[in-house]
């Protein structure tokens, strides 16, 4: 007799959507989150607006939390999974939430443990992130945008010129992250628009290798950023950032104009990419799941066409735990995994 419950590990957008859908399909969901709060990285990192549709991030996460808070979902916050035994249909989990370890049973597991932002100081001092206070990341900038106050951390002044540098920690064999992080082009363009809205006299540059504005991001973000907000896209990455007086000198090549490029700016924003979160790596190890060379959970199944299948039957992966994902990807895979998990329970009932 198999268990009729689906346990979802991770309370970010993907986990919330998976829990909500399992419950909507009439099965019991248990949502486990190690933080005290649900909402995942958008909540933890204080995102201002989501890239798609410029939605207020807090408001959007509140909606998702509310949708996943029906009677069919048991939420366990501040809880960590410490061991998993059994197989598809009959998993037995040990969880820890401060008190004595508890045991949970589940027919299927959905992993929604997500990503973390690339740390520009992880291996080498990328662009002097830890040296110059006016070199920040897109995650840092989200916090400033949320507070409606974009300033130079060195002196509290409004920046006259801001430069984004794309692909920091992505598409880089030297640091081992050869993949594209998929969302940073959209995020930088969104943030550039927000800066131009907040500070109309501030010039904004985006230095890039390729702008990857797939689908509707082209017409919703890239073109408006250029055409309405006069954001300056320059194809060419900075090799280094130097302090010059109290400003920062960016050195690079303006490749399409065939000329070297030096721009003095007040604030540099590093478009850091995604890496598997610590939780993703830990759960992969705990569950014995195959990981790809970057540490993400290998997904796709034998035929490559099942984006939520892992190497272990009955364990599904959603969102950025399987690789760089935007909000749409996370929600779409969450719905698919919920369907797959419920189908498994029904087959085994």
């Amino acid at each position, binding site marked *: 007799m198999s268990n009729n419950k689906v346990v979802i590990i991770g309370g970010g957008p993907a986990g919330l959507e998976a829990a909500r859908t399992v419950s909507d399909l009439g099965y019991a969901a248990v949502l486990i989150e190690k933080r005290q709060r649900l909402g995942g990285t958008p909540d933890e990192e204080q995102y201002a607006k989501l890239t798609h549709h410029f939605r207020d991030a807090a408001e959007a996460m509140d909606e998702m939390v509310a949708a996943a808070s029906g009677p069919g979902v048991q939420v366990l916050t501040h809880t960590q999974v410490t061991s998993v035994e059994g197989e598809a249909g009959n998993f037995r989990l040990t969880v820890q939430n401060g008190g004595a370890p508890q045991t949970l049973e589940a027919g299927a597991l959905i992993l929604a443990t997500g990503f973390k932002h690339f740390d520009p100081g992880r291996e080498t001092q990328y662009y002097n992130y830890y040296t110059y206070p006016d070199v920040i990341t897109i995650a840092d900038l989200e916090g400033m945008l949320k507070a409606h106050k974009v300033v130079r951390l060195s002196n509290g002044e409004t920046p006259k010129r801001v430069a984004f540098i794309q692909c920091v920690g992505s598409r880089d064999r030297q640091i081992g992250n050869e993949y594209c992080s998929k969302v940073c082009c959209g995020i930088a363009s969104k943030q550039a628009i927000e800066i131009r809205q907040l500070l109309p006299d501030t010039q904004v540059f985006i230095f890039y290798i390729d702008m990857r504005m797939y689908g509707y991001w082209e017409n919703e973000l890239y073109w408006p950023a*250029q055409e309405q907000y006069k954001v300056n896209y320059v194809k060419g990455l900075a090799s280094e950032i130097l302090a010059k007086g109290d400003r920062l000198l960016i050195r690079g090549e303006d490749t399409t*104009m065939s000329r070297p490029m030096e721009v003095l700016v007040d604030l540099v924003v590093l478009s850091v990419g995604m890496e598997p979160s610590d939780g993703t790596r830990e759960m992969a190890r705990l569950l014995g799941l195959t990981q790809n060379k970057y540490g993400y959970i290998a997904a796709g199944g034998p035929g490559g066409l099942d984006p939520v299948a892992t190497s272990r039957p009955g364990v599904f992966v959603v969102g950025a735990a399987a690789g760089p994902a935007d909000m749409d990807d996370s929600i779409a895979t969450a719905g698919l995994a919920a369907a797959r998990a419920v189908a498994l329970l029904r087959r085994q009932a």
Partner: protein
Amino acid sequence: MATNAANWNPGKITDKYPGVPYEEKLRLFAEVKADARYEDYLYGCYECGICVSACPSARFYDYSPRVIAQTMAREDVNRMYEILVEDIWNCAQCFSCVRCPRQNSPGGLVTLIREIAVRNGIKETRDVLQGYSRVIYKVMLKGNQVSPDMLQPDFFPDWGPWVRSFQGNMNLWRQAIPVDSLRGVTDAAWKTDDQTLRELYTIWFETGNIDLIAEIDEGLYELLLDVMEEALEDWA
């Protein structure tokens, strides 16, 4: 003084016209942007290069329609000034560049900028146009600028496979065209009819453009004046 991070500047970004005050460049830039046609000619540029690959001038001259759109979109005032005094005269105004997927018209921008360069009597505009005396001569006397003898088979494969044989037998083909204005003509696109030339000459006199040529190239001015006045008298 030792080079350090604070004073380091290899000076590779050169403003080609440092003698012209930035305010003057900005004024000209604003004049271009204020033109009523501007917003229909430039949306934004993602630097795909379609305009360059379609552009005959980019093959024959040191010219890039992409740089025109890109410079305006980036609001690069110094580069725009360079365009205003140099690049614009390399454009043949054929408007092949309007195939731009963003619906920009680099050739339209060139039209605007040319007008502004001429209206403002920029010294370099006169100097640059001096080098174009032959083009002006050709346009003035033939009524057009691009001619069949410029047709090169390897330059534009999209013109079709017949280009090679046409080029090899150009005289024969042109002799065979049963149209008076085209028959045997290889050094002009077509033989412009007298009525059109008379109107063109009249326009050049009436608008004062011929006087501008006098400032650029007196020899050319005299030559054109002779031919044009004589023709106008004959027709009268």
